[in-house]
């Protein structure tokens, strides 16, 4: 009896310091299984996302939207679903999309978005009249400051080296004030904050943003005065997709990236919480045993 008691105790002790690889396996499964089953989690759209959606929805046909790809491959899993959703919406609204990047790494992601979303889903959208890829330019916030005054000074050619003066949709672009909306995607610096401070505020141009969950708290203070809306992390993306589905029924039933992301999120959060609870329960069991044991010893 006594023997069994001590053995049992070591088990509790052992479990408290379980091999962390067991936790790794659980987290891996929590992410992969929902993905393989294509499970999605719908998110109700909150006002900060809905106003953003409504702004684009309210733009007249042919409005000019500047999309700035200010992120890299490492944060793409979080940001790309937002980009896809907004590009789809702009294409439905027949807005003219001007794509550029403040980050060198944004260049490839712009091309990827065009190849994976715009070309297959909107074959009627023509390069040069409906959308343009201007590519990356150095200068960070300095670039924004120049664009506010003279757009073509920094973008004399597009990403593939074509003279912008020969591109129809660039004809009436003089500076940033010619755009009806600026959307920046990115979590770091330069990014949304710089667009607000150096373009949105001085030029009185509406700015919207999509950012990583980590940087969202730093940007919330700019809403609603300086930002028309903000998508924060996977949740923001899923909320935007929900708004898109509500407005465009053809997306109904489609499993969109942000919603898939949310399901994996929820499951892995539960796994982590389970382990925290589990660890604490073991800790309390052991502590109460230690206590009773030391009391026995004291007697």
């Amino acid at each position, binding site marked *: 009896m006594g023997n069994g008691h001590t053995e049992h105790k070591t088990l509790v002790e052992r479990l408290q310091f379980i091999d962390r690889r067991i936790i790794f396996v659980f987290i891996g499964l929590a992410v992969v299984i929902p993905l393989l089953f294509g499970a999605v989690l719908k998110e109700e759209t909150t006002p900060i996302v809905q106003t953003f959606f409504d702004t684009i929805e309210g733009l007249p046909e042919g409005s000019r939207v500047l999309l700035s790809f200010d992120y890299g491959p490492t944060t793409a*899993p979080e940001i790309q679903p937002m980009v896809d959703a907004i590009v789809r919406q702009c294409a439905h609204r027949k807005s003219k999309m001007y794509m550029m990047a403040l980050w060198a790494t944004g260049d490839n992601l712009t091309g990827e978005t065009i190849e994976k979303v715009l070309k297959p889903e909107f074959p009627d959208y023509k390069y040069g009249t409906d959308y343009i890829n201007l590519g990356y330019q150095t200068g960070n916030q300095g670039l924004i400051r120049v664009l506010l005054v003279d757009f073509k000074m920094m973008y004399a050619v597009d990403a593939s080296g074509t003279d912008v003066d020969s591109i129809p949709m660039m004809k009436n672009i003089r500076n940033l004030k010619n755009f009806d909306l600026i959307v920046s995607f990115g979590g770091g610096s330069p990014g949304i904050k710089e667009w607000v401070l150096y373009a949105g505020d001085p030029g009185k141009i509406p700015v919207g943003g999509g950012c990583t969950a980590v940087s969202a708290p730093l940007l919330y203070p700019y809403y609603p005065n300086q930002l028309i809306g903000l998508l924060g992390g996977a949740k923001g993306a899923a909320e935007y997709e929900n708004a898109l589905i509500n407005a465009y029924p053809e997306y109904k039933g489609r499993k969109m990236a942000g919603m898939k992301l949310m399901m994996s*999120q929820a499951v892995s959060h539960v796994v982590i919480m389970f382990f925290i609870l589990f660890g604490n329960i073991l800790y309390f069991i052991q502590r109460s045993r230690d206590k009773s044991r030391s009391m026995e010893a004291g007697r």
Partner: protein
Amino acid sequence: MNAGKLLSYIILAIVVIAFVVSIALKGFLVTVGAFLTLFIFSFLYKDNPYYKFAEHLFVGASAAYWMSMGFWKTMVPNLFGKLYPPMVAWAVPALKNNPAQPLMLIPLVLGILLLMRLSSKAGWISRWALAFIVGTTAGLNLVRYLRSDFIQQINNTVFSLYVTNASGFDLGATISNVIIFGGVICGLIYFFFSKEHKGAFGAGARTGIIVLMITFGASFGYTVMARISLLVGRMQFLFGDWLGMIR
């Protein structure tokens, strides 16, 4: 040949075969990306030759990547292209008509001074460049932090503790404001170095620690979401782009 060695050869054979099959089915580039991803993840189990391979490749490739970017995106346009444009016009014709800026001699000289440390005799002179860099940062940071973090954060904390809304006194918002106010003050008390944490001051410091702990716990919990997203991205690549198991 012992069992361990045999096993490692078997694994190597499997990896090579899988790699070849994958290239045949999915193409070279996706395969490379997928295997490098798996090599990195294998570190979670334990250190192994595959991780070592990925790690060493990553270190070498990334160092050269930033050197190349630094040369073509900074050195050529911002230094040579401004100092004496014809010098680089053969590589970047767009710079040809830039006006020459003799002031750019300053960074050129400082850069060369920095390289002097390669010489054992004149190595000390590289400190001049260093002194310039550190002096610049110190000057810029002093004013910037004073302005945007010190004064601005104090300004943000100056608000009314007693909050009213349309229906009169707003209890919730009032409590929140009092907590922010008290939390900032106690947090600052915690950071005092030259006063012993005793008596009322000690109680303040202790409250400060509690506020900081809430901050740390909350930030940690908040970041989990972003980190999971990254893993989802990788898994989508592995199971979707590579294995084609996600539709």
